[in-house]
């Protein structure tokens, strides 16, 4: 009885200690993050202007702006998505709708899991050996985009498959009962029903691709000129930040501003993805009703 009381007091004290400690550690983590964010917003915000976004970089990035870098970034993203999306969507549809109980599906999933773990520098090495040299694309936006496509594929497939699996089974059963073909079910029911999740997955992949640096260092290259075609080499935002800090003395201010632009883009993308995901849950009930009224 007595020792039981002592134990309870003891554990209450322990809980108090744990509580204090956890609050402190959580505040520490949050504090460092706010420090980083405010530092970049304040230092970077000082140099942010329309002309920074619209002018070409001069003097290795010490002056001018980042117009050509934004264009290169966009080009790499477009290449990346236009390759990753068909493959990713096809894989996700197959995994979610066609491959139940197939051992091959397990292998495909495991393979994508491994691909998700491959370090980006290794993807870069592969991209250089395969796209730049074996396929003869050289340092180019095309090679960079293709390399990035390999990188975002696991994330994309994961998100798309989850979106398709979230579509209620009743839709498929209803379609089958009505004698709709598989292709028709897919095109008119499943894909529209999963659209918000598909869009969210797409947006997440764009974010992942925007954040990438190491895989692009020796695939899309360093050139700051305005690219004229996809076969040109071009420098993306993250590589620009890296180069300004490491290789250009006195480039820190422009690196800050570029980092701010990159973070701003990523935040906007994140918010868009959140919005898309939210509309799945609000739109679900309504869509089911529509189906039943058919």
């Amino acid at each position, binding site marked *: 009885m007595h020792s039981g009381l002592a134990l*309870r007091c003891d*554990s209450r004290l*322990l*809980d108090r200690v*744990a*509580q204090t400690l*956890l609050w402190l*550690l*959580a505040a520490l*983590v949050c504090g*460092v*993050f706010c420090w*980083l964010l405010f*530092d*970049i917003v304040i230092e970077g915000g000082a140099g942010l202007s329309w002309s920074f976004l619209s002018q070409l970089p001069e003097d290795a990035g010490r002056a001018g702006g980042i117009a050509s870098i934004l264009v290169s970034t966009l080009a790499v993203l477009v290449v990346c998505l236009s390759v990753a999306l*068909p*493959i990713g969507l*096809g*894989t996700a*549809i*197959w995994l979610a709708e066609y491959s139940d109980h197939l051992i091959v599906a397990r292998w*495909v999933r*495991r*393979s*994508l*899991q*491994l*691909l998700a*773990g*491959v*370090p980006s*520098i*290794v993807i870069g*090495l*592969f991209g*250089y*050996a395969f796209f730049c040299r074996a396929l003869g694309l050289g340092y180019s936006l095309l090679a960079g985009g293709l390399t990035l496509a390999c990188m975002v594929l696991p994330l994309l497939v994961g998100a798309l498959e989850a979106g398709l699996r979230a579509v209620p089974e009743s839709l498929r059963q209803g379609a089958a009962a009505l004698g709709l*073909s*598989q*292709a*028709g079910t897919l095109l008119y029911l499943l894909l529209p029903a999963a659209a918000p999740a598909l869009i969210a997955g797409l947006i997440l992949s764009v*974010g992942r691709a*925007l*954040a990438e*640096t*190491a895989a692009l*260092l*020796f695939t899309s290259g360093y050139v700051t000129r305005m690219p004229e075609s996809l076969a040109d080499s071009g420098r993306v935002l*993250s*590589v620009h*930040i*890296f180069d300004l*800090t*490491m290789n250009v003395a006195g480039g820190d201010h422009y*690196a800050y501003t570029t*980092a701010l632009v*990159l*973070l701003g883009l990523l*935040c906007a993308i*994140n918010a868009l993805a959140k919005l898309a995901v939210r509309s799945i849950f609000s739109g679900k009930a309504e869509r089911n009703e529509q189906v039943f009224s058919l």
Partner: protein
Amino acid sequence: MYRSRIDRLLQIALPLLALLAAVIVLLILWFLWLESWPFIASGDLFNSNSWHPSESQYNLLPMVLGTLVTALGAVVLAAPLGLAAALFCRFYAPQPLARIYRWILELMAGIPSVVYGFWGLVVLVPMIARWQGPGTSILAGILVLTLMILPTASLLAEAALEKTPEHWIAGAYALGLNRWVMVRHLAIPHAYGGLLNALLLQAARALGETMAVLMVCGNIAVLPSSLFNPVRTLSANIALEMAYALDTHRAALYFSGLLLLLTVLLLVLGAGRLRQEYKHA
């Protein structure tokens, strides 16, 4: 008739696309092996004393050590911090604060590693330099890596903690256990598999990370003797020298990439196995 033809087409096209997606990993392994073969065949790996590619000296040991030390340091720092942040979010913070905190962690997880590296170089490195030169050091690398893996680690840990059934927790409270005892003896043991899984995945990320360490570690390919010495990791070595490497030198870089890849894949496989095992338990 028309419909069934499309169906048949889909039945052929979809598995092919999936196969294409699945083959990428094999392609990566094959190309890395192919490109690093000249180095493996040359045998230079074992008769080199230092890293001087111009003199055909390819000793990878300093870089292997640099990679291991920075990654291990980051994991050792991030594991308790990540667990603390997850426990705070799940059990100790009031509901609205927990939601804001989770949102902050998600934002942090989305920050590109090059931004972490940049901030480390312009803010952390000068601070360390004031304390003990030269600033760009193992310590800076560990700190920046910790910052980088911490958000994802705590988000994964929180997801694992969330799987403890609500009625177990209610039962524990009903038995008169207080919060800490419940956390210590119920929530954490129950989430053990998920927590270890998070740890392994983040260790893999720390091992493979390039930009963050490349920017703050100083990149000198010599065995370090203290936390304040500069160091070069395998990944940084590749990023620095790929641009001008030729022949055996390039093969050596590919070999270090292969080394990195195999280590990371082992960790990822281990993490997957762990998750499976604890699911059955």
